[in-house]
């Protein structure tokens, strides 16, 4: 059979050179993988793999000497692969509804809004605030502002009861505005700086309208307002534990997603209204453990967020499925609950008397 390369005395030498090159490249990828170069790791790994692949194709498969048709056919496979990957990724990886929401809300921010005008309550502003409140705040603060929204039982500290007359950061309009804009670090009260200035002021007026005798701004508050440009510049930090704001998602949106995707399979982490505890153990459980382990100990309650998009949570497990030593040994139980499980989102809870430990242990056993 006549063949282009037939004149040569075989390819053995070339093959061995290619083989050596392949081994060297393999060593390079393995070595590189032990160092952390961020995204460069994957790029280098893919580049090396592609060089190796090309050597195999061109020499071992002798595509280099093959006729043009075969070359085109084989390379076309990668073109189709590119289309396959490209189209799928362009759909799957760019579904960011959150961003759209934030952009829409930022666009509605009146630039250079007249703070002095907004500072004064008007029926229109209170009405606007009322509507926004029911969407953004009622989950925690309750429809009537009594701090008893559906999300409240799981929170500590509890959301403010606006009808109580207590203000941690002051009830003056400028103070409430600051609280809403910047949140209360370390609590569930997030910063709502992503809302427009006018929106935030309308919330101030609505919240104050349901509070008993809210104090007015004093001259020094107003002076601070003039000097403190920060208040009208929007976003404060959303996630107080971090230095930089991660992704500004309106809390209502986050709550909706939470409710839809994550709570679906979980136990009720909220004490249903009118449910009475029957014994001491049950009472202690409901007060201390229910918010994480669920009403019937079935777990599934999201505790720590471990990925941002899509949100994925570390969840508590079903007591019934537990097989740790605590199941048979009260001392281990006391030890786990007292010390908590650091790194797994379980706090240490130790304030029980020995009688209370007994009832609590019995009750948790009964949930299994």
């Amino acid at each position: 059979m006549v063949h282009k390369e037939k004149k040569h005395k075989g390819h053995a030498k070339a093959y061995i050179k290619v083989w050596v090159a392949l081994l060297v490249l393999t060593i390079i990828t393995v070595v590189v993988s032990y160092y952390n170069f961020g995204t460069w790791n994957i790029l280098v790994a893919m580049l090396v793999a592609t060089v190796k692949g090309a050597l195999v194709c061109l020499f071992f498969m002798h595509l280099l000497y093959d006729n043009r048709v075969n070359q085109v056919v084989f390379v076309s496979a990668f073109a189709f692969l590119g289309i396959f990957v490209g189209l799928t990724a362009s759909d799957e990886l760019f579904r960011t509804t959150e961003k759209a929401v934030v952009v829409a809300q930022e666009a509605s921010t009146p630039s250079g809004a007249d703070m002095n005008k907004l500072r004064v309550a008007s029926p229109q502003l209170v009405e606007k605030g009322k509507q926004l409140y029911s969407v953004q705040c009622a989950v925690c603060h309750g429809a009537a502002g009594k701090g008893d929204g559906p999300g409240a039982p799981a929170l500590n500290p509890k959301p403010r009861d606006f009808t109580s007359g207590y203000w941690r950061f002051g009830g003056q309009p400028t103070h409430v505005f600051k609280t809403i804009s910047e949140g209360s670090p370390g609590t569930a009260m997030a910063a709502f700086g992503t809302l427009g200035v006018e929106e935030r002021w309308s919330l101030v007026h609505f919240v104050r309208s349901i509070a008993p005798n809210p104090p007015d701004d004093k001259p020094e508050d107003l002076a601070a307002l003039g000097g403190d440009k920060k208040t009208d510049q929007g976003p404060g930090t959303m996630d107080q534990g971090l230095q930089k704001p991660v992704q500004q998602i309106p809390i209502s949106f986050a709550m909706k997603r939470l409710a839809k995707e994550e709570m679906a399979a979980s136990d009720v982490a909220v004490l249903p209204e009118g449910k009475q505890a029957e014994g001491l153990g049950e009472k202690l459980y409901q007060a201390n453990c229910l918010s994480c382990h669920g009403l019937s100990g079935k777990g599934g309650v999201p505790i720590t967020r471990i990925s941002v998009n899509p949100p994925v949570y570390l969840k508590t497990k079903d007591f019934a499925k537990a097989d740790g030593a605590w199941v048979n040994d009260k001392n281990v139980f006391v030890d786990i609950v007292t010390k908590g499980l650091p790194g797994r989102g379980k706090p240490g809870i130790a304030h029980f008397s020995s009688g209370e430990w007994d009832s609590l242990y019995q009750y948790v056993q009964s949930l299994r």
Partner: protein
Amino acid sequence: MTHGEVTAGTTHVVPHHFDSPEQAFEASKLGIWLFLVTEILLFGGLFVVYIIFRALYPEMFHEASHHLNKVLGGINTVVLICSSLTMALAVDRTRQNDSPKANQYMLMTLFFAACFMIIKYVEYSHKFHEGLLPGANFTFEAIQHPKTPLFFSLYFMMTGLHGIHVLAGMGLITWVLWRSNKGQFSSAYYTPVELVGIYWHLVDLIWIYLFPLLYLIG
């Protein structure tokens, strides 16, 4: 060489619908290349799944990848590269009318392929033991991320499909070796050796990508 002539030392007859042995050879080669295209798209589906999930859960892929054995994966890469070399040499020898040498190279290729499968077996049995199997059989708890089973399902699907290709390749090489041993191939006719060789290099090519993507994340 005329139409339908019996080539030296073999019983091979060029099929009557071809004008010449060259044409028959080229047609067979086009066939194998087309087959390789479908193979790449077959694995391509798994690569797409891999890309999407790795983009969605980078930390999880990172952590899970540490539970694969880099050393065994690396040894297997070297083993496959060696098998590719011996296969290429076998084709080369056949073309030089040196069947005895070619047979030796094919035996070596089979040996390397068997090594690959044995190492794979060691890796798999360890993973089975750890409870990393897909679906309801997943009982591994050392990684907290709830989507962890995804990575290992992908690992088993990708390396499993590749392993099936290695086994198929071993069967094909055995067949070619058997025919070669009967003296059916020479520089005049060696199409099956050539095509099995090309297929075998594809198996190596796919592993070249699987290895860094699964074992060497970060």
